């Protein structure tokens, strides 16, 4: 996860306010939320509170699964959208939308000369520019955008640090160039290229990229007394300052009939992954990659198809857990509690999970319902999963589990890609042209693994320590 910023806090605030209205049967009050967050005579983040309120309105629409193109009448009040979504059980496939009103159309000028330029005699910026793009005007350097190729030489050459790089944060963060400006200069996500890594949502300082939330449909199901089962990702264990057992307890108080740890499904992933790797490498395949990070699987499907035969066919822990849960609780609504939005996409494709609720949405829901996590010393839910399966939450966790499962390591030579950026995508593309010196490749789209997911609450290093402590405290069995 990225640094804390106000855009994140506002999103959490909106979410909890929306859920609270729903819980109290006050959906008609939805239109008040922008006013509550930006009250009269209060401070504004943008030009004025009115612009802020308009942006908040569109962000709420985005959370409810509507984007600007769904707005046929600008006077349609927010609560109508909320009601339509709940009444018609409206689900859309689109996960991310850019709120045009919020997008600041960041200037992609790239290199800019600031007024720190002293118009020196040496003029190394001008002399070192291979494209003749720098000129001097009234004693200061200016860059001709037409000629500039953004090589950055002038920036390096300037002894006064007068030339800065101005990024477009979302475009910079996207590892696959799936987000670009449309004709109006606003950002637009190309779904055919998007791998749902969520990096743009974290990167945008205006919070302009909004993820559709399904938490309201889950709340509605529970209100209607539908049998609902929570499947919780291993990374959840580190998300609140309390024992995992207390977090699970809080989920039960929200109204879930049962809570199942997805670490149970991870046991099956480990076994299948190990068997598949043994089989494939014995048959001459040089290496195999993991497949539990859905964002990486999307990357291969959409951008590096040559790598596809090397990706393991083993399903993710979420898949196996859902299968087990379907047997145990037939007919129940299955809800996966997730650290990231890529899982939402995986669930939509897979069909076994009905809804995905992010850790952030869980926090907002607890807040709306006034639930505090206790500090009693509860053990985890059913304690059916081993230590290695719980470590799936951390980068290197899958490798660790497979390695421990294989007899005497069986010649496993692992390599980990911890976080997917543009650089990592390039090296993955090159991978198919050579024989690497590893034979097992774990790829996690987020740095630190799932505890670094875009929808987490706790800092990754804090979450990691908490998960490790938890295992010591409850003396969880080492291996399967």
């Amino acid at each position, binding site marked *: 996860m990225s*640094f*804390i910023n106000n855009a994140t*806090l506002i999103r*959490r*605030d909106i979410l*909890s306010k929306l859920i609270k209205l729903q819980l109290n049967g006050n959906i008609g009050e939805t239109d008040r939320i922008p006013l509550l967050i930006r009250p009269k005579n209060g401070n504004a983040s943008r030009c004025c509170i009115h612009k802020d309120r308009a942006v908040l309105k569109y962000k709420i629409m985005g959370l409810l699964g509507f984007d600007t193109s769904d707005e046929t009448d600008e006077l349609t009040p927010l609560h109508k959208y909320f009601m339509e979504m709940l009444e018609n059980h409206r689900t859309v496939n689109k996960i991310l939308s850019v709120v045009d009103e919020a997008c600041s159309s960041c200037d992609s000028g790239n290199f800019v000369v600031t007024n720190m330029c002293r118009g020196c005699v040496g003029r190394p910026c001008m002399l070192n520019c291979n494209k003749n793009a720098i000129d001097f005007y009234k004693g200061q350097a200016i860059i001709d955008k037409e000629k500039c190729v953004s090589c950055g030489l002038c920036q390096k050459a300037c002894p006064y640090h007068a030339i800065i790089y101005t990024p477009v944060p979302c475009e910079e963060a996207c590892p696959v160039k799936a987000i670009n400006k449309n004709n109006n200069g606003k950002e637009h996500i190309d779904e055919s290229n998007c791998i749902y890594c969520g990096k743009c949502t974290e990167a945008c300082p205006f919070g302009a990229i909004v993820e559709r939330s399904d938490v309201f449909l889950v709340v509605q199901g529970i209100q209607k007394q539908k049998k609902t089962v929570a499947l919780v990702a291993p990374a959840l264990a580190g998300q*609140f*300052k*309390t024992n995992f057992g207390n977090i699970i307890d809080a989920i039960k108080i929200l109204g879930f009939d049962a809570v199942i740890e997805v670490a149970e499904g991870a046991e099956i992933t480990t076994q299948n992954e190990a068997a598949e790797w043994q089989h494939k490498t014995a048959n001459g395949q040089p290496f195999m990659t993991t497949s539990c990070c859905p964002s990486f699987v999307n990357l291969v499907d959409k951008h590096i198809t040559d790598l596809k035969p090397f990706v393991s066919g083993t399903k993710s822990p979420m898949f196996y857990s859902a299968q087990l849960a379907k047997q145990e609780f037939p007919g129940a609504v299955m809800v996966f509690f997730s650290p990231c939005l890529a899982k939402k996409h995986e669930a939509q494709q897979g069909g076994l999970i009905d809804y995905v609720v992010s850790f*952030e949405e869980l*926090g*907002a829901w*607890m*807040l709306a319902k*006034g*639930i*505090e*996590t*206790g*500090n009693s010393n509860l053990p985890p839910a059913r304690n059916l999963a081993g230590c290695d399966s719980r470590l799936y939450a951390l980068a290197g966790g899958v490798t660790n589990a497979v390695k421990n499962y294989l007899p005497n390591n069986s010649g496993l030579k692992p390599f980990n890609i911890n976080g997917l950026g543009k650089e990592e995508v390039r090296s993955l593309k090159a991978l198919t042209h050579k024989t690497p010196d590893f034979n097992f490749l774990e790829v996690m789209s987020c740095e630190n693994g799932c505890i670094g997911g875009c929808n987490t*609450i*706790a*800092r990754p*290093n*804090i979450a990691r320590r908490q998960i490790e402590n938890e295992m010591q405290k409850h003396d969880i069995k080492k291996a399967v």
Partner: protein
Amino acid sequence: MTEITICSGTLCYIMGGADIFEIETKLSEMYNDKIRIKASTCLGFCEGENKQNPPCVMVGNELIPDATIEKIINHLKRLYTR
């Protein structure tokens, strides 16, 4: 020994409190034996007449509302350079 108590009630925790635990990695070494960081269940500052903005942190007996790591460090500096 000064105790830094980070409110981990649901409101404080999700509205920025979770990020304050990172303070451990940002404190100068001189505080190593002077400070203890702990989490607490809801400290109760989010309700009542004197309602404070989250996240709330106690440094010793003093309340820091709307806390940030920077605010806490500045407070510690004042405490220890007196």
